[in-house]
C-alpha cells in the first residue's frame, strides 16, 4: 500500500482552497510519521492490518452503470439521499431536493468550495488524527463525502441516507469519505449511513472519518449499516461532540467486510447530554470485526447507555473494546456499558474488554460483558415441539439480536433492517 501512496496523492485534483491542500499534506505527513499500526499497540492488539498493507490500492476512476447499483443497495426511497460510488458523488443516485429551509446537505466536494470557511473552522477539530494513522490518511485524501448543516431549531422531516457503494474495477480501489454534520441548537435529524459494495469485483477499501457536532439541545438519531463484501476492508472513525442537553442515539449494524474496524467516540462536553450507543455485529467465515468505543463524560449530569451484541460463527473473530471515561468534575454521571457475544462455533473467537475509568465520586456506572453459546434447554424445547435444531438455532440467534432492532428512530427502518438480519440467519421473512 505504501509504495505508491505518494504518487496517488499527487494524482489528486487540486483542492479548492490553499488551506485544503495544506490540510491534505499535513494528513499525509502525519500518516507517514505514524506508520501503520501494529499488534504491539494496545488498541490494535487483536487486529492486524497486514493484508491491508500488502494490497496495492488506487483511487477509483470512472462510473458504474447506476441503475444496476440502485436496485439492491438503497434502503429507503423516501429518504433524502446522497450517494457515492467508488468514492465519487453520484447526482443521479442522490435526492437532495425539497430540503427544508435551514438545512444544507451537500456532497463534500461542493461544500469544500462553497462552505470553505465553515469547514476550515470545524473540520478535524474534534477528531484528532495524531494517534490515528487512518484518519490522517483520510485527511490526505480529503475530497468527497457528506456535509450536513442544520440551523437552530430546525427539525428534519425525513431521514438522510448516505449511501456508499464500494467498487473496484481491475485494481483494488480505496475510498476516503469524510463526513461532517453540524446540528444547531435544538435541531433534530436522523442520519443513516449505508455502506455496501458491488459484488464480484476486486477487494476495495473504505476508510471513513466522521465528525458529528451537536449543539445545545439538539438530537441526532444515527444508524450505520455496513454490509460490504467479505473481500473488502472497512475502517471507520467517528467522533460525536455533545453540547448541553444534546442527545446522540446511535445504532451500528455490522455485517460485512473481511476486516471491519470501527472506532466510535462520543464526547460529552457540557452538562446533561445523553449518548445511547447500540451495536450489532455478525461475523462469519473468517471475518474479523473490531469495535473500539469510547464515551467520554467531561461534564456533569451526562447519561450514557451502551449495548453491543455480537454473533460469531465459523472462524470469525470479534473484538470489542468499550471504554467509559468519567472526568473528575463530571459528577452525577450515569452510565451503563454492556457487551454480549453469542458464539455459534467452537472456532470463533471474541476478545471483549469493557472498561470504566471513573475519576468522579458521585456517579452511577456499570459495565459487563458476556460470552455465551446457545442454550441447550431452549434448543431442546424447540425440538421437543418438532422444530428441527437447525431452525431452532437460527431462531434463538435471531431472538438474541432482535432486541437491538426494537426501538429504531424510524419505524420504516425496522422492517428493512430486520429483513437483513433474517436473511443473514437464513430465516424466512414471516418469522417473528
Amino acid at each position, binding site marked *: 500500500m505504501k509504495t505508491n501512496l505518494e504518487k496517488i496523492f499527487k494524482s489528486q485534483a487540486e483542492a479548492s482552497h490553499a488551506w485544503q491542500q495544506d490540510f491534505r499534506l499535513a494528513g499525509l505527513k502525519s500518516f507517514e510519521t505514524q506508520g501503520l499500526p501494529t499488534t504491539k499497540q494496545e488498541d490494535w492488539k487483536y487486529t492486524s492490518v497486514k493484508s491491508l498493507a500488502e494490497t496495492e490500492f488506487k483511487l477509483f476512476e470512472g462510473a458504474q452503470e447506476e441503475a444496476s447499483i440502485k436496485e439492491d443497495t438503497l434502503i429507503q426511497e423516501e429518504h433524502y439521499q446522497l450517494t457515492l460510488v467508488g468514492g465519487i458523488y453520484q447526482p443521479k443516485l442522490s435526492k437532495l431536493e425539497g430540503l427544508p429551509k435551514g438545512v444544507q446537505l451537500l456532497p463534500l466536494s461542493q461544500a469544500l468550495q462553497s462552505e470553505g470557511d465553515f469547514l476550515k473552522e470545524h473540520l478535524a477539530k474534534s477528531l484528532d488524527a495524531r494517534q490515528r494513522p487512518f484518519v490522517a490518511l483520510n485527511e490526505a485524501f480529503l475530497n468527497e463525502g457528506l456535509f450536513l448543516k442544520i440551523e437552530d431549531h430546525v427539525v428534519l422531516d425525513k431521514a438522510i441516507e448516505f449511501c456508499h457503494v464500494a467498487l473496484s474495477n481491475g485494481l483494488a480501489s480505496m475510498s476516503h469519505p469524510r463526513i461532517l454534520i453540524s446540528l444547531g441548537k435544538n435541531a433534530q435529524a436522523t442520519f443513516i449511513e449505508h455502506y455496501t459494495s458491488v459484488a464480484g469485483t476486486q477487494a476495495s477499501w473504505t476508510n471513513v472519518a466522521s465528525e458529528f457536532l451537536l449543539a445545545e439541545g439538539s438530537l441526532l438519531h444515527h444508524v450505520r449499516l455496513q454490509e460490504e463484501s467479505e473481500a473488502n476492508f472497512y475502517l471507520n472513525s467517528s467522533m460525536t461532540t455533545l453540547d448541553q442537553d444534546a442527545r446522540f442515539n446511535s445504532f451500528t449494524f455490522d455485517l460485512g467486510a473481511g476486516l471491519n474496524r470501527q472506532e466510535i467516540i462520543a464526547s460529552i462536553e457540557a452538562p446533561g447530554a445523553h449518548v445511547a450507543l447500540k451495536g450489532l455485529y455478525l461475523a462469519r467465515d473468517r471475518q474479523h470485526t473490531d469495535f473500539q468505543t469510547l464515551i467520554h463524560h467531561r461534564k456533569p449530569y451526562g447519561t450514557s447507555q451502551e449495548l453491543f451484541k455480537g454473533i460469531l460463527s465459523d472462524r470469525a473473530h470479534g473484538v470489542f473494546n468499550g471504554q467509559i471515561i468519567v472526568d473528575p468534575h463530571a459528577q452525577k454521571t450515569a452510565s451503563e456499558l454492556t457487551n454480549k457475544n453469542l458464539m455459534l462455533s467452537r472456532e470463533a473467537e471474541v476478545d471483549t474488554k469493557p472498561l470504566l475509568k471513573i475519576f468522579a465520586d458521585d456517579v452511577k456506572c456499570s459495565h459487563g460483558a458476556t460470552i455465551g453459546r446457545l442454550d*441447550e*434447554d*431452549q434448543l*431442546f*424445547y*424447540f*425440538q*421437543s*415441539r*418438532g*422444530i*428441527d*435444531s437447525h*431452525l431452532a438455532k437460527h*431462531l*434463538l440467534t*435471531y*431472538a*438474541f439480536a*432482535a*432486541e437491538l432492532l426494537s426501538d429504531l428512530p424510524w419505524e420504516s427502518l425496522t422492517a428493512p433492517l430486520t429483513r437483513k438480519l433474517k436473511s443473514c440467519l437464513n430465516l424466512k421473512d*414471516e*418469522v*417473528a
Partner: protein
Amino acid sequence: MMLEIKKLHATVDGKEILKGLNLSIKAGEVHAIMGPNGSGKSTLASVLSGRDGYEVTSGEVLFEGKNLLSLQAEERARAGVFLAFQYPIEIPGVTNSYFMKASLNAIRQARGEPEVDAMDFLNLVKEKMALLKMDPKFLKRAVNEGFSGGEKKRNEVLQMALLEPKLCILDETDSGLDIDSLKIVAEGVNSLRSPDRAMLVITHYKRLLEYIVPDRIHVLQDGRIIHSGTKELADQLEEKGYDWIKEQAA
C-alpha cells in the same frame, strides 16, 4: 401397543437413574406415575422425548412398534410424542404465537398435511385457548417469559391441545396450578382423551387423578416400577405414603 418400555436402563453423567424399567401403555389408556422425589420420573420423560445428556445403556422403547430411541428429539415430536415439561423453558425474543405455529407446521408437514396459514392458525389456537380459558394476549408474549408457574403449565397443555399428539407425557402439570386452574387444565387434558391417544401422567397428588382418572397407576422408586394398581392406589398412597410399598417390594 402405543408404548412399550422394556428393561430400560439410563444414566445421567455416568450415574444410573433408570434401572430396568418396564411399562406398556395401550392406545386409549391413561397411565399415571407416582413416586418419591428423585426416583427418576422426569428422567423417564426426558429419555422418552430424546433430551441430550441421557444415555440409554440397555433396554428398549417401542413407540407404535418402532424403535423410539433411534429418533432425534424433533423426529419423536413429529411422530406424535409430546412432553409437557415439569419446568417449561422460557424463550425470550420468540413469540408464543410464532413458536406454536412453527411447531404445528413442522408436525403437520411430517404428517403429510398442508401448512396452516396465519389466519387458520389464529382461529385454531384461539379455539384451543378458549378451551383452556387463556387470554389471547399470551400469543404475543415471548414463549413462557415472565409467565407465572401456573401460566407456564397451562401453556404446555395449550401446545398439547394444538399439536394433538398420540402420546402425551405430562410431567407434574398440576404443580403450580391453583385449584380452579387445575380443574380447567384437567378438563383440557380430558378433552384430549381418545381411543387412539395414550397418556402418561406424572404427579405427586391424588387430586389431579381425581380429574384425570387413570386406567393404571404405577409407583416408580429408584429407577424401577415397583408397584402398579388401579386408580384406588392413589388413595392408599395419599394415606400411607410410599414406605409400605417399598417394604413390600423389598
